[in-house]
C-alpha cells in the first residue's frame, strides 16, 4: 500500500482553499491547511470578486483560465445558493481606444464560443440605457454581457474549505506558521506559533501579499510587490438606483454595485510598480481595518468620474478601505516549484485571485500528485522571473 503524500498549505484565502479542495480530490493526498486568522478573511475579503467574461483584467491569452474560474463558481452557486455569493449584474466594458475595441470584440467572440452572450455596442443611447449615469461622449463603444457579475471571495473560500474538509482534508484555524523546516535545501515541514511541528512532503505557500515574509522563512526571495488596492463605497446621489448597476470597466478603474452602494477601485493593471504611491513592500498585518486611502486617490477618482461617469461626482463617500495586492513584474502569478525543493508557491495573483485560482489549483494539484505539468504552469513558473532578473 502506498503511503499518502503529505501536503501543507500555508494560507486560507482563495489561493489556499482552492488548492486544498483540489488536492483533497486525490485519495492519496493528505492535506493540511494553516490559516492564522479566519478562512477567506485576509486580503481575499477585500477582493471585489469580479469575474467578467471579457474585461482586461487578464489577457485573452489566458481566456480558458477565466472561463474555468467563472464556471466553477456558477456550479458552486447552483449547488447551494449563496455559496459563491454570485450577483449577476452583467458587465459593461468601455472602450477608449481602437486597440481596446479589438480586444473587447475578441473577448466577445470567445464568450460566444463558450455559449454566453455578448455584444459590442456603438449606439450611445443604448449604452446609456444600460448605465444612465455614464458620459458616452468619451468612449468609442462598450462591450456588454448580462451573463456575468461578481462573486464573494470570502464565501468561495469558505465553500472550498468545507468541501476540502468533507473530503478528509484538515484545516487548522488560528494556526500561525512561524517557521518552515528546511533540511539540505529541502522543505520538510512547518512549525506554528504554538511550537508544534508538522512534517510534510510538500509545502505550498498560498499567502498572497504575505509571501515575501513566508518566503523569507524558507530562505527564498519571492519577487512580489504590493500594490495598493484603494477602494471606496459610494452612495449615488439618487440613493436607490432603479436599474441594475453593471460591473463597469474602464482601463483605469472599475465599479460594481454593493447593495445600494457602489464599490469603486483603481484597476490593478493601472498600477505602476515603480511609483511609490502605487507600489512597495509593506506589511499586510498592518493594514487598517478601514480607511488608509490617499488623497491622490480621491482626486484620481474625481477626475475619472468627471470625464466618464458624471453621475458619480456627487456620490457620497460612505467608507473606504485599503488592501495590498501581491503583484509580480509581469502581473501574472507565480505557481509551482521554487529553488527550494518541495517548497512551492501559488501566489502573486494580484487582483485576479478569484478569477485564476480554480484553474491554477486544478493544474497545481495534479502536478503535486502526479508530477504532470501543464502549459499554464510552465508559463506561470517561478523560473520565468529568475530569467527576467538576470537580464
Amino acid at each position, binding site marked *: 500500500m502506498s503511503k499518502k503524500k503529505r501536503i501543507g498549505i500555508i494560507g486560507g484565502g482563495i489561493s489556499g482553499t482552492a488548492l486544498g479542495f483540489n488536492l483533497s480530490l486525490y485519495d492519496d493526498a493528505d492535506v493540511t491547511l494553516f490559516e492564522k486568522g479566519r478562512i477567506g478573511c485576509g486580503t481575499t475579503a477585500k477582493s471585489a470578486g469580479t469575474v467578467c467574461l471579457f474585461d482586461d483584467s487578464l489577457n485573452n491569452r489566458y481566456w480558458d483560465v477565466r472561463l474555468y474560474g467563472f464556471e466553477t463558481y456558477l456550479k458552486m452557486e447552483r449547488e447551494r445558493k449563496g455559496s459563491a455569493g454570485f450577483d449577476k449584474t452583467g458587465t459593461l466594458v468601455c472602450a477608449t481606444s481602437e486597440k481596446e475595441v479589438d480586444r473587447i470584440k475578441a473577448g466577445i467572440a470567445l464568450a460566444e464560443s463558450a455559449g454566453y452572450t455578448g455584444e459590442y455596442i456603438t449606439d450611445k443611447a443604448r449604452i446609456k440605457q444600460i448605465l444612465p449615469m455614464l458620459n458616452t461622449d468619451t468612449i468609442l463603444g462598450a462591450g456588454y454581457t448580462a451573463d456575468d457579475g461578481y462573486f464573494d471571495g470570502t464565501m468561495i473560500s469558505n465553500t472550498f474549505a468545507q468541501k476540502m474538509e468533507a473530503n478528509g482534508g484538515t484545516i487548522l484555524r488560528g494556526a500561525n506558521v512561524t517557521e518552515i523546516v528546511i533540511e539540505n535545501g529541502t522543505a520538510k515541514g512547518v512549525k506554528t506559533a504554538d511550537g508544534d511541528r508538522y512534517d510534510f512532503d510538500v509545502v505550498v505557500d498560498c499567502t498572497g501579499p504575505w509571501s515575501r515574509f513566508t518566503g523569507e522563512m524558507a530562505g527564498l526571495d519571492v519577487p512580489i510587490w504590493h500594490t495598493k488596492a484603494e477602494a471606496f463605497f*459610494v452612495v449615488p446621489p439618487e440613493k436607490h438606483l432603479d436599474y441594475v448597476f453593471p460591473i463597469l470597466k474602464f482601463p483605469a478603474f472599475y465599479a460594481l454595485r454593493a447593495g445600494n452602494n457602489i464599490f469603486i477601485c483603481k484597476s490593478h493593471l493601472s498600477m505602476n510598480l515603480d511609483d511609490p504611491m502605487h507600489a512597495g513592500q509593506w506589511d499586510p498585518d498592518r*493594514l*487598517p*481595518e*478601514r480607511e488608509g486611502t490617499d488623497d491622490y486617490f480621491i482626486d484620481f477618482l*474625481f477626475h475619472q468620474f468627471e470625464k466618464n461617469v458624471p453621475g*458619480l461626482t456627487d*456620490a457620497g463617500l460612505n467608507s473606504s478601505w485599503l488592501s495590498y495586492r501581491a503583484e509580480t513584474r509581469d502581473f501574472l502569478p507565480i505557481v509551482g516549484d521554487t529553488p527550494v525543493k518541495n517548497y512551492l508557491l501559488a501566489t502573486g495573483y494580484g487582483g485576479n485571485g478569484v478569477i485564476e485560482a480554480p484553474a491554477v489549483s486544478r493544474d497545481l494539484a495534479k502536478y503535486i500528485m502526479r508530477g504532470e505539468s501543464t502549459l499554464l504552469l510552465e508559463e506561470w513558473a517561478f523560473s520565468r522571473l529568475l530569467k527576467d532578473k538576470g537580464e
Partner: protein
Amino acid sequence: MKIAICVKYVPVDSKVQVDPATHALVRGSGAGEINPSDRYAVEMARRLKGDGDTLDVFTMGPADAVRALKVVLALGADHAYLLNDKAFAGSDTLGTAKVLAAALEHYGPYDVVLMGSASNDGATGQVGPMTAELLGMPDVTDAVDLRIDGTTASVSKKAGDALFALKAALPVLVTVPFGANEPELPTLRNQVAANQHDIIEVTAADLGIDPATVGQAGALSVVTDTMQVVQKKQAVTVTGTVDEMANKLAGLVEGQLKALQQGGGEHV
C-alpha cells in the same frame, strides 16, 4: 449665529496589543477616521446652519487629524482649526477640555457648540460637559434633536428609553450620540475641494495656554500601567438541549433588556 463643532480623529483599528517591555499600546496601523458619533454631531450642526451662520470645526490632535477636519469641511464647515502642539500630547479629559475651551473662546464666542457624545477610543464622555463648564455654558448630553429660537435652544435628549424635551439659554454645548440622525455623506466633489481648503494650525502659545496646565504635564488622571489581557476574546459557549439553550438565551436577553431600560430612563 456662530456654531462650533469639535471632533476627534480616532484610530480605526480595534485591535491593540501591549508592548511587553515599554507597556505602550501597539496598534495594527496608524490609520484613523473621524470619531463615529461625531458624524451625527456634524449632521446636527449642518441642519442647524442657516444663511449667514458660520460653522467652524476644531480638533485637537497630531497633524494626521486634519483628515477629520477635511471631512467636516466637505460637509460645509467654513473654518477648520487644528489644535496641535507638543504640549497638548498626553492630555487627560480635563486637559483636552481646557484646550478646546481656550480655542472656542479665542475664535468665538459661539452660540452653539456641538460634539459627539463619546469617542470610540477613550469613550469617557467627559470632555463635553467639562468644556461646557469651562466656558460657563449649560450642557445637554445625548441630544438627538436641536432647534434654536432666538436665544433659546430646544433640545431633545435621549436617556434610557425616553426622550426629554429641554430648553437651555444660549450659548449651549450639546453632545450627540451615535445614531441620532441620518448623516449626509461628503460628496466626492466636495471632498476634493475640501482637501485643498486652508487648515488653521493653532498652538498653545496662540491660545495663551500655559503648557504646564495641559498635556502630560497638566494631567491629573494618568495611566500608570497597561496590561495585555492574556485570554483571547473567547465566546462563552452555551450548550445543552434545545430547551436548555433557549432558556439560557432568554435569560441572557432578558437581563440585558432590563439593564437597558434602567439605563437612565427613570430620570426626572
